[in-house]
């Protein structure tokens, strides 16, 4: 937000301002140093942020911590927090973002809301005006605690440096345990400057009012196992809980032993390798045909670490009514929230899944699987084949993803933005490893992709990061090209340009009589824009050029931008129209 002089009108404040470069005695730390020491003690290596008036003392201290903390200067605080999210999602660690007070803090709100609904562990640290100015409408003062209350797992305002070590210990503990989520700590400028006797940093491992993991009740595990063993047509649906619980192995062992077909939500994607024989595909509005239809045919539905989002369930009163529902979740408030569970198994799935695995019978369910295969064949015939190998001259998004798969062999981290390209990428991208699909699921934040990819690369530097973005989303956070340039972030930017805000256009076509209201979006010359930022790139629109262009992008030493012109009015199918049951999924 730029450097700004505080509008100081009274004497006390002047005195505090004069303390801006404190001379420290033995054992004395400034609040700002305590903040950075806390980050180091928590194992933080990378911080994303943007300086400004109220967070200047922390940035001043950071100057001396350059060897121990890597700070990535973003171009907008929203970019900073999405980068921290991408970092958290690719690394499994807590993402950290700095922002100043006022507009700096309010620019974090979208990312906090996104992290809240997608359970991403984050610690956001915001500067705040001097404590004695709170409530006076001081320059760049905003009530960030109350603004962010509904979109944080926990937040706290520090006005005294003595609180900093314990509050940050609490913040990290809350962010990463239980159902993870974003935490915001707002620190007034006087507390950042204040000198205090620093007694070291102690990690937090208990808050009496906070129970991150509910106690597992063996009898419910037993009842669940009994239902699974009796089932003729059991069906597993899984979400990000498997990834957040680091329970990919436990999950695989569970479904493999009981022979259970398993389908994923878009946040659960990559927890189970794409080519795993029990992986039957994607759930929900643009999910695969089989998983949607079979949801309403199975006799036991086993939900693991997912929350029955409306985009997954479609019409709730026609959702899996025939089935007994087993719901495994770490968050007790999720059980019975949208879908009534026959058996609710509360707990961390890393612990509950092995208990279940022990009790379930080894089975195959061959006939039941054949039903999924039949659906898959139909979907390939009606949708997939044409999408991946189009007979028309115009490129489809699906064939771009297919070509990408052939080059990456499913080893890349795929970050997506929001819209048609996101659905196509989730449907067709292949994954071998967990934590490889990074997308904004719950909030559907356009503009998430580019900054999240930057963070993802820092979270997993040894991996190839490809971000797939539409021509709408890229223009929302295109300023982060600057971060890629300055910090030399090696991300591969793949813009799928259909010259429309495609998902809204698709709905307008299907449900609003093709009244294309403000979905016709113009684009700049992306190759030139990228070039301006020192990012190499090219644009292709011919099938013959596609594969070699993708290869050039992946082989390029450093970041690269490839724009692919795809069909303007292509639609994503299958589709469960809003308000319809999952069994009413449309193939065209």
């Amino acid at each position, binding site marked *: 937000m730029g450097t700004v002089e505080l509008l100081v009108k009274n004497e006390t404040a002047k005195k505090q301002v004069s303390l801006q470069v404190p001379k420290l005695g033995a054992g004395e730390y400034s609040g700002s140093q305590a903040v950075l020491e806390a980050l180091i003690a928590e194992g933080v290596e990378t911080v994303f942020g943007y300086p400004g008036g109220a967070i200047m003392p922390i940035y001043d201290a950071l100057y001396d911590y350059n060897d121990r903390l890597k700070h990535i200067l973003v171009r907008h605080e929203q970019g900073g927090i999405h980068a921290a999210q991408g970092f958290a999602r690719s690394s499994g660690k807590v993402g950290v973002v700095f922002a100043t007070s006022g507009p700096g803090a309010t620019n974090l709100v979208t990312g906090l809301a996104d992290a809240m609904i997608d359970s991403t562990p984050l610690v956001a640290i915001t500067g705040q005006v001097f404590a004695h100015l709170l409530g006076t409408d001081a320059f760049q003062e905003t009530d960030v605690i109350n603004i962010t209350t*509904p979109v944080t797992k926990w937040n*706290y305002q520090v006005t005294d440096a003595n609180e900093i070590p314990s509050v940050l210990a609490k913040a990290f503990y809350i962010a990463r345990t239980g159902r993870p989520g974003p935490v915001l700590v707002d620190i007034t400028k006087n507390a950042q400057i204040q000198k205090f006797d620093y007694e070291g940093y102690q990690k937090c491992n*208990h808050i*009496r*009012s906070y129970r991150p993991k509910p106690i597992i*009740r063996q009898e*419910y595990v037993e009842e669940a196992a009994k239902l699974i063993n009796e089932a003729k047509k059991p069906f597993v649906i899984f979400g990000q809980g498997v990834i957040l619980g680091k329970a990919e192995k436990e999950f695989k062992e569970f479904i493999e032993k009981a022979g259970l077909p398993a389908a994923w939500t878009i946040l659960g994607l990559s927890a189970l390798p794409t080519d795993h024989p029990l992986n039957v595909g994607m759930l929900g509005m643009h999910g695969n045909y089989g998983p949607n239809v079979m949801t309403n045919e199975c006799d036991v539905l086993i939900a693991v670490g997912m929350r029955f989002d409306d985009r997954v369930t479609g019409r709730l009163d026609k959702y899996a009514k025939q089935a007994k529902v087993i719901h495994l979740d770490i968050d*007790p408030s999720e059980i019975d929230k949208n879908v009534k569970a026959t058996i*609710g198994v509360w707990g961390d799935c890393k612990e509950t899944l092995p208990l279940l695995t022990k009790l379930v019978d080894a089975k195959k369910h061959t006939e039941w699987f054949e039903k999924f295969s039949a659906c898959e064949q139909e979907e390939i015939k009606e949708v997939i084949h044409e999408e991946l190998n189009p007979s028309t001259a115009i490129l489809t998004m699906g064939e771009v993803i297919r070509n990408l798969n052939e080059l990456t062999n499913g080893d890349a981290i795929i970050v997506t933005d929001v819209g048609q390209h996101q659905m196509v990428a989730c449907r067709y991208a292949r994954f071998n490893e967990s934590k490889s699909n990074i997308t904004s699921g719950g909030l559907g934040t356009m503009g998430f992709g580019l900054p999240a990819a930057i963070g993802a690369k820092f979270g997993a530097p040894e991996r190839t990061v490809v971000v797939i973005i539409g021509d709408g989303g890229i223009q929302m956070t295109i300023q982060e090209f600057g971060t890629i340039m300055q910090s030399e972030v090696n991300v591969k930017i793949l813009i799928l340009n259909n010259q429309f805000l495609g998902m809204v256009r698709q709905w307008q076509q299907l449900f609003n009589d093709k009244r294309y209201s403000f979905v016709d979006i113009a684009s700049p010359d992306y190759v030139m824009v990228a070039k301006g930022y020192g990012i190499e790139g090219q644009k292709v629109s011919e099938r013959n050029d596609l594969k070699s262009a993708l290869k050039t992008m992946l082989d390029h030493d450093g970041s690269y931008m490839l724009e692919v012109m795809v069909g303007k009015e292509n639609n994503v199918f299958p589709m469960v129209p809003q308000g319809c049951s999952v069994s009413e999924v449309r193939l065209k």
Partner: protein
Amino acid sequence: MKKEFTITVYTENHIGLLVRIATIFSRRKINIESLNTSPSEAEGIHRFTIVINETEEVVRKLARQIEKQVEVLKAYYNTDEEIVWQELALYKVPTDEIAEKVQVERLLREHGARAVVIRKDYTIFETSGHRAETENLVQVLAPYGLIEFVRSARVAIIKNSKGFHEKLKEFDEAEPAEELVENEFLDKQGEVFSM
């Protein structure tokens, strides 16, 4: 079917928690009929008493959302039959009316009101009871020039509760105690009392 539920929440004393709890209701466009915060029987533990009109299913979900907040120790919800509750009301009436009219004195006595302040110009009465009772006295006093009326939020005691001392000990331990039954609502789905 919607009916009146009283939600009792045991919490840490933390700035901002009121907003966190209030937004759980406002976000779902649910009106809070009455809200009271006070100390509880356990030292340092706050007690919220919240009254809403909703179906039990909604109330159960709300209670879980409340309990999910980091600073909340426990949230219970109860029907009116399961609690003993009171609201306090104050009434300001002109003193000369009371002095002159024996009828008023009789009415106040009937309604169990007692004088808190008596001045030349006005007298303040206090009564406590259920909503209908305090409401009733407003109607009765209206013809006699009722100047001001105010009623407090509901405070309630759960008939079947053993208080929070024991629960608090369990919360204080670093590891959750064995006897703490987190899934207890599943055990007695019929007579759901606590979560």
